[in-house]
């Protein structure tokens, strides 16, 4: 059991992070917190990818005459792309939140729902 935990702790952390992030995305009412949750969730995936790139006993994938084994660089490259995607998503999300704040005057989801239910049905601005 201990071996399992120690041997795969990076995966376990990834899972834990993913769950934390997922929880925040679903359960938090504050839109910014949702995005933070989203980022944690995605970070968990990054960690997972980086973990699968690690080769036991391997070195950084840079040509080096003493190296016996290299780590697999491909997942790292992939995750670079995923990070870019994640950053863009976050940016779009923040842009949306700013506009939501302007339109509804709040970024709390339950208040927005309340406003939508009671509020006037007009165009924003």
């Amino acid at each position: 059991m201990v071996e399992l935990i120690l041997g795969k702790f990076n995966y376990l952390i990834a899972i834990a992070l993913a769950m934390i992030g997922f929880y925040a995305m679903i359960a938090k009412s504050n839109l910014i917190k949702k995005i933070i949750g989203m980022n944690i969730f995605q970070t968990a995936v990054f960690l997972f990818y980086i973990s699968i790139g690690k080769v036991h006993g391997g070195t950084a994938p840079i040509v080096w005459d003493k190296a016996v084994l290299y780590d697999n660089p491909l997942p790292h490259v992939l995750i670079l792309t995923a990070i870019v995607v994640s950053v863009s998503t976050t940016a779009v999300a923040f842009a949306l939140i700013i506009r939501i704040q302007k339109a509804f005057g709040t970024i709390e989801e339950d208040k927005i729902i309340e406003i939508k239910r009671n509020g006037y049905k007009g165009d924003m601005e």
Partner: protein
Amino acid sequence: MSIITSNFPVLLVITPLIVAVCIPLLGRINKRIPPVAAVVSTAFTLMVSIILLSTALDSGPISYWLGNWAPPWGIEYVVDTLSGFVLVVVAFMALMVALYTPGTIRDEVPNDKETTFYSLYMLLVAGLLGIVITGDVFNMYVFIEISSLAGYALIASGKKREALTASFNYLILGTVGATFFIIGVGLLYMVTGTLNMADLASRLPEIYDSKVVLTAFAFFSVGLSLKLALFPLHIWLPKVYTNAPSAVSSLMAATGTKVAAYALIRITLSVFDVEFSRSVDFGSILLVLSCAAIIAGSVLAISQTNIKMMLAYSSVGQVGYIVLGLALLNETALTGSLIHILNHALMKGALFMVVGIIVFRTGVEEISGLRGLGRCMPFTMAAFTIASLSMIGVPLTVGFISKWYLAVGAVEAGMWYVVPVILVSSVLTAVYFWRIVEGIYFGKAANVTLKGPTGLLVPTMIVAALCVVFGVAASVPVSVARLAASALLGGGGM
């Protein structure tokens, strides 16, 4: 010339991508250029995708190595019957909506944002085409995110503030879906060391009993079902379709969920294969979900008073039809599914375009406000009626063809009890469309003042007419869909 034709697969994706980047610059020169650029480039992609499809039909699948890196190391673009077929559908609807956009966005999008709108539009098209053409799972993820990000922004570009929250909800759920997808990709990479679909397909069968593979499959299917809005993961969809600008809902309703359905079919049947789906009993899960989607979508649609909301829920039901064929897993039903990708794109595209026209010209969104419009907008309402009949599944319209294949496929699969589900939903569909059609033609004419151009009608009428054309001359798309279906079921197909 040949350097262009030989690079068609990549041009298909990068043309809209480049145009998307150039549009803001062109818009600076003259605001009239972006719409023209959008139309020209989507027309180009339509031409290219038709050529690619016919080449694929004539001489087998086209494989294109991006940057001339051989797969499985480089990214491969693949045009086979299935992807060629979906490419044509997407490119065609993109062109139609591009023709339709200039008329409607004037009202729906702030003036200074129009140029950006076109830029995002092209980005969305590039993403959708990319998802379809790529033969690499990670590349598929990237394109899913490109199309989604463009989609979030487009949805929020309207003036309605509800659009913002709708877009935000979609962003959250869409990101969950895409992230699930990428987890699936990672798991598969972990056990196979490859990302190329064909390569994956050849390596996976040896390790089908591995838990990792099963987990990956689960992540893929849940993630894509979210993008697909498969009941009960559909909650983001109605608000998005209702509040987005008409052009956006038209394009997304016509192609967005279809492309996600394509991705699901591609992953489950090309990357994995039929045996795997059967061994994990994927079909029966999908069967329950799709039947639930078909019925729930129709029932929810009946209870709506807002016409866009009604169409959105009807889309939820229609997604069920596409998935149904995947659940039944025989050639006839899968043909029905694939043909429904085209058919539903046409019907729902036409309906959203019509509703866009109605909203634009009368400002009415409530169903009760449509009474008597048949007299003052005869052509628009004719298009609406045709598309509605098609949604009901009346013979000689496209809707009938897909339902027919699904129903016959269900009986072939020994699951005759699926047929009543299809038929009951037809009746329910008849209920919610008849309610409107009757009001349109028999209601006392409402006191509405019409405004705006009638030019919007041209693309709308074309799409609506195709609902009948492909309902009568169905053998062309059906034969293509059947080829694609048999390739999918005949082991890999890539």
